[in-house]
């Protein structure tokens, strides 16, 4: 039954996601886009944290690199959304190649602190380079161009049109994350997480592979940043702030680090909780903190991990 559920669950989720705009609720469609964007960010980030065991506090910088990359490209070169997203991914990956080269030489807490430092540096640069980035106002007025592909020009002006575009890229990103996790490269990442010294003595160039997964996870962050600019029409400096870097960590903890579905379920819960709690109080992080404490205290494997354990227990023969 669990195996059947594993096979059917992605198709059911995809079908449900396809149906969201049909409800005709614009706000619901908007929220679903936000969930998918966070899902792209978190599923890429979890390749680094859950799969490789590296905790980065600087991924907001790569998200912002994607956002500003797409924004500047759209304002000055072309508003083609796919070209803009390619620039977003490339900008984030290039920045990660430089930052990662310096960070992966350290491990554990030193790695985390270095990524935090680079993230804060990126925030300071964006905040102060007003002529290029718009400073604290951000980069505003980014328009969504038509999606010209294979002779067709598909408009993305309406929320529902953008929704299916984001859904396609979300599905692609999740598929890529899934394939990486189950590939030889993914197994090596898990080995590095478990025991980096042993991985080196198994013939794995640990630093190089850490850098590779760092760049890949940054590319996911860049894609997510670019998608947010397409949704909101602006890039904000706080995208690179360390508090934003913490979002994929919180989301991964909420859903569970050990699976592909964990960060995705975490993204849904995170956005839903924020919307619900913010209706009652401005201090929604306070409520979220309590929920996270409960999750870590009572369900350390996250929502998905705990559900999987319960299902496995139900499916196991009684002693």
């Amino acid at each position: 039954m669990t195996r059947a559920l594993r096979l059917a669950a992605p198709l059911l989720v995809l079908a449900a996601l396809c149906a969201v705009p049909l409800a005709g609720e614009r706000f619901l469609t908007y929220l679903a886009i936000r969930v998918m964007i966070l899902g792209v960010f978190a599923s890429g980030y979890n390749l680094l944290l859950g799969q490789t065991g590296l905790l980065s506090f600087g991924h907001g910088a790569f998200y912002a690199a994607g956002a500003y990359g797409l924004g500047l490209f759209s304002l000055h070169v072309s508003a083609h959304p796919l070209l803009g997203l390619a620039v977003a991914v490339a900008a984030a990956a290039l920045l990660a190649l430089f930052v990662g080269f310096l960070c992966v030489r350290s491990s554990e807490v030193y790695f985390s602190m270095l990524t935090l430092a680079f993230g804060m540096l990126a925030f300071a640069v964006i905040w102060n380079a007003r002529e290029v980035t718009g400073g604290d106002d951000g980069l505003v007025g980014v328009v969504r161009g038509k999606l010209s592909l294979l002779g067709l020009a598909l408009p993305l002006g309406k929320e529902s049109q953008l929704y299916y575009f984001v859904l396609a890229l979300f599905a692609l990103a999740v598929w890529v994350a899934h394939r990486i996790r189950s590939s030889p490269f993914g197994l090596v990442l898990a080995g590095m997480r478990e025991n980096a010294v042993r991985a080196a003595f198994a013939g794995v160039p640990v630093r190089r592979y850490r850098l590779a997964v760092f760049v890949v996870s940054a590319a996911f962050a860049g894609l997510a940043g670019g998608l947010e600019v397409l949704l909101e029409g602006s890039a904000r400096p706080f995208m690179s702030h360390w508090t934003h870097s913490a979002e994929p960590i919180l989301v991964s903890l909420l859903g569970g680090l050990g699976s592909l579905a964990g960060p995705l379920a975490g993204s849904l819960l995170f956005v839903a909780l924020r919307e619900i709690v913010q209706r009652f109080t401005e201090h929604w992080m306070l409520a979220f903190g309590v929920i996270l404490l409960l999750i870590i205290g009572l369900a350390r494997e996250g929502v998905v991990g705990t559900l999987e354990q319960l299902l496995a227990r139900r499916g196991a023969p009684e002693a």
Partner: protein
Amino acid sequence: MSEPILSTHRLTNWFGKVCTAEDLDLAFRPGELTSIIGPNGAGKSTLINLLTGHLPVQSGRIVFRGVEVTRLPIHARVRLGICRSFQVVNVFPQLSALDNVLIPALAAAGRTRRFLAPVSRERAARAEAEAVLASVGLSERRDTRAAALSHGDRHLLEVGVALAARPALLFLDEPTAGMNPVERARLLESVRGLAREGRTTFVVVEHDMDVVFSLSARVVVLNRGEVLCDGTPDVVRNDRKVREVYLGDEVIDLMPVAEGARP
């Protein structure tokens, strides 16, 4: 006499004021099972750490199959064929026994960069990993997490992880430490079998003299970073300095006849 598979030239290492390797000139010949013995602090594990890249070399040179490897990182030495096991079990604890040996098998085959195809399609590497597990007697435990294996099985798995990297030269650092007699016999049987195959040259650091003298064709005795004695088990057993510093007369009398010492 055949060319050494690995040789050291004036290899020196200091930890503060303590010398753990002093101008060491050692050579290991292909196919020869060598044991390194010596009192605690003699520099046995340090020597392995230097030869495998776990410690940087302060001065001196290491040559492996004619190639200088003194400054090469660990993974590059492993790719050339130098591998090791550790004194304290060092495996991937949350991965299955099969995945533990699959990682080095994939690395040895140059397949670890593949990032979109499922690992289940790596049939050749999987077959090799299965064969390695069988050679160390762990086929039935292939799906068990390494952390859930017994201490002896984890030691065997670690030898398997090292073997899956296709080593030409394998250092085993106290491989039987903490094992019960049954586990120890299984491990020694595996090592003897693999040594007989001749593809791998074994160098074993060991405190158990039964193991050393029944397994080895050659014994190197280290003391304070220097070679005290180097020869066949008979030569070492009868060396006066070795008796004084390490073995003692009573231990010598109880030692088994050196089966592995026969040419």
